[in-house]
């Protein structure tokens, strides 16, 4: 027989952990608060500030812990209620649990066993107590939140994930009220003096009799504690949502819309008092499409420009609706006043800001992951023209762009073309070395490439630097860079898939030797 009498302790331990975890889970998603903290900490320690970039990872870890502790808590209570039910059913006066269960049947005496009769069942008790009912409701909310947060659902059906996640409101309300029924009972302090459990527990037949020295024990419910843990973070989260609402009412004007061939929409916008750093991202809301959805996009403009741009890839419901709202499917030009109203939250910081701290940088972007680097390259260029202080440190930039399809080059190729032109004018060809890798191609295209192999400009991008085919040989690249820049710290920045991140990280570690240090930074969204 499993020790049912310890089940309550097994339930209360994870409950304590749950209090702590539920306090923590709301904090990583207060992105405006985190952004403010990041700005304040940055002056003291950049490493500390960078930890705040992994807020979603932390949120997920705490969520796994909540799920685990909930499971232990529920299983322990199952044993616990079975024990309580046994105590009521085993109506034997020489059985301590039964005697304890009888306490509370008279007037003015408080009970110990929450199951008050032998004609009920644990299931019925669960649905008729506050603790039981709230417990079921919040567990269901938690399960629905978890199943809709699975990667498959989150990546492909974002709306389901986002709307279902709002069940957390029900979760927290239920959690706060979970202990209000004071179903967990304990002996009162006064009673502990009159009935010491060590000596009196086995002499239960003599309780209340004058010569026993043991009075009948009295019990009371423990006051609810959870609200003390979660009220702070709940308040902070409410403030966070209010800040987002306030920001959504600040006027944002779309000044230019460009449709690029690779199903990419470029939006150029202006907002009063908007200030950004390189590689940051913003959340965009379009009330005419959906009042509740905010989607993240990397800023592709440089801080030196007086507008800011995002490049939106059209992959789902919301982006498709944005495309149509901006006149994508109409052939004639859209009037400026017909453009949809948008709201911006942000900008929020990522690791790209660290680029300017290195002498040599390797920038690797895969597909659409190149967008933060568009911002960096533009900013590098502006700083160089203006001969700013910030740029003095960077000596060399090695840029790698891995792309599966040729159309995706279009909008970025324009940027590279203008940079290339300006660099040759100033005789700085070595400053920026870029390599574009086309990782997939069709048979018909391959024939075209073979014929134009000797042409001066690349047949795909029109750039002087030729497009390379296949995937880069990272070992060679790292070795070349290591030998070209001995004794320097090289920053490696990646925005792309995890597999690539892992292999780059390995390369960084294996090529870091006396003098040259490769430091790996990954963007995460």
């Amino acid at each position, binding site marked *: *027989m*499993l020790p*049912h009498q310890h089940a309550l302790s097994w339930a209360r331990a994870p409950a304590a952990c749950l209090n702590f975890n539920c306090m923590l889970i709301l904090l990583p998603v207060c992105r405006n608060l985190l952004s403010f903290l990041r700005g304040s900490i940055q002056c003291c320690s950049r490493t500390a500030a960078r930890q705040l970039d992994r807020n979603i990872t932390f949120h997920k870890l705490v969520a796994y812990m909540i799920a685990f502790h909930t*499971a232990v808590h*529920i*299983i322990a209570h*199952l*044993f616990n*209620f*079975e024990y309580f*039910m046994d105590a009521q059913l085993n109506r034997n006066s020489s059985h301590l649990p039964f005697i304890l269960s009888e306490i509370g049947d008279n007037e003015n005496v408080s009970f110990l066993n929450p199951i008050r009769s032998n004609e009920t*069942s*644990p*299931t019925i008790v*669960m649905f008729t107590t506050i603790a039981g009912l709230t417990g*079921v409701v919040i*567990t*269901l909310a938690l*399960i*629905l939140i*978890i*199943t*809709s947060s*699975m*990667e*498959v*659902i989150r990546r*492909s*059906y974002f*709306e*389901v994930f986002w*709307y279902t996640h709002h069940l957390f409101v029900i979760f927290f309300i239920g959690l706060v009220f979970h202990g209000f029924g004071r179903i967990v009972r304990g002996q009162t302090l006064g009673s502990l003096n009159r009935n010491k459990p060590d000596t009196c527990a086995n002499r239960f037949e003599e309780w209340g009799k004058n010569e026993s020295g043991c009075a009948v024990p009295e019990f009371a419910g423990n006051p609810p504690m959870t609200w003390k843990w979660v009220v702070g973070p709940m308040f902070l989260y409410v403030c966070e949502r209010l800040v987002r609402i306030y920001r959504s009412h600040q006027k944002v004007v779309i000044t230019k819309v460009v449709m690029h061939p690779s199903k990419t929409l470029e939006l150029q916008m202006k907002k009063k008092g908007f200030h950004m750093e390189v590689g940051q991202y913003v959340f965009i809301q379009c009330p005419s499409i959906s009042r509740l959805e905010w989607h993240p996009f990397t800023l592709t403009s440089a801080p030196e420009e007086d507008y800011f741009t995002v490049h939106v890839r059209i992959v*789902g*419901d919301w982006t498709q609706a944005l495309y149509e709202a901006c006149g994508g499917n109409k052939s004639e030009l859209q009037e400026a006043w017909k453009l949809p109203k948008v709201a911006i939250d942000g900008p929020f910081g990522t690791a790209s800001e660290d680029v300017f701290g290195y002498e040599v940088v390797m920038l690797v972007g895969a597909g659409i992951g190149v967008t933060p680097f568009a911002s960096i390259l533009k900013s590098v260029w502006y700083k160089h023209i203006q001969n700013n202080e910030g740029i003095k440190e960077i000596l060399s930039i090695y840029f790698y762009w891995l792309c599966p399809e040729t159309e995706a080059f279009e909008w970025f190729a324009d940027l590279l073309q203008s940079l290339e032109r300006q660099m040759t004018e100033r005789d700085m060809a070595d400053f920026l070395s870029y390599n574009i890798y086309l990782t997939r191609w069709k*048979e018909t295209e391959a024939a075209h490439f073979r*014929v*134009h*192999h*000797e042409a001066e400009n690349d047949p795909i991008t029109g750039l002087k630097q030729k497009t390379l085919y296949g995937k880069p040989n990272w070992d060679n690249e790292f070795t070349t860079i290591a030998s070209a820049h001995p004794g320097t710290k090289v920053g490696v920045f990646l925005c792309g898939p995890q597999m690539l991140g892992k292999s780059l990280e390995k390369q960084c570690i294996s090529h870091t030797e006396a003098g040259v240090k490769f430091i790996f930074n990954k963007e995460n969204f």
Partner: protein
Amino acid sequence: MGKIEWAMWANEQALAAGLILLTGGIVGVAGQFRGWEFASYAIAAGFFVCMLEYPRSKRAKGTSVERTGQYCFTVCVKAFGPVTRNYYVRAFLHAALCVPGGFMLATVLGCVCLGIASLIYLAAAVRGEHWEPILPRKDTRKPVAESIKSPPQNPPPRPPPEIRRKQAKDVEGAAYDNPIAVTDE
């Protein structure tokens, strides 16, 4: 939420429900709770639901991600043909399976979760979705055309020597129209 395939979420929910039902059943039997017969039923039902729901369906649009090692399950589930293909059947099956779980506290959670999964499957069925097995793609080589029976006897036609000399220096200028049509049909 126009493009959501509800079956994808129903599948996650049903798999989770199967696991919860299984766990509740194991707890009920191991602890020898009252009504442990329902718990033993829950073990069997939970196990069955997990087996049925483990193989993910192929998505109508977009790339489908398999669960690890789901191929053997796919083959088994596929063998039942229209019964497992149709989501109405699954919806009613889950609704029926979940009922006995409601009679015991340990399995009640699994019962409710499976009920919710059943409702989502009903929504999927109403929208006309159905289960498709994810099978490994067989690359079919294009069938060789009838006319090609034996390798060519003569070497391919070559341009006259003047043009061949030009080819070495000027790629564009050396282009000429091949008198015999060369296509890859």
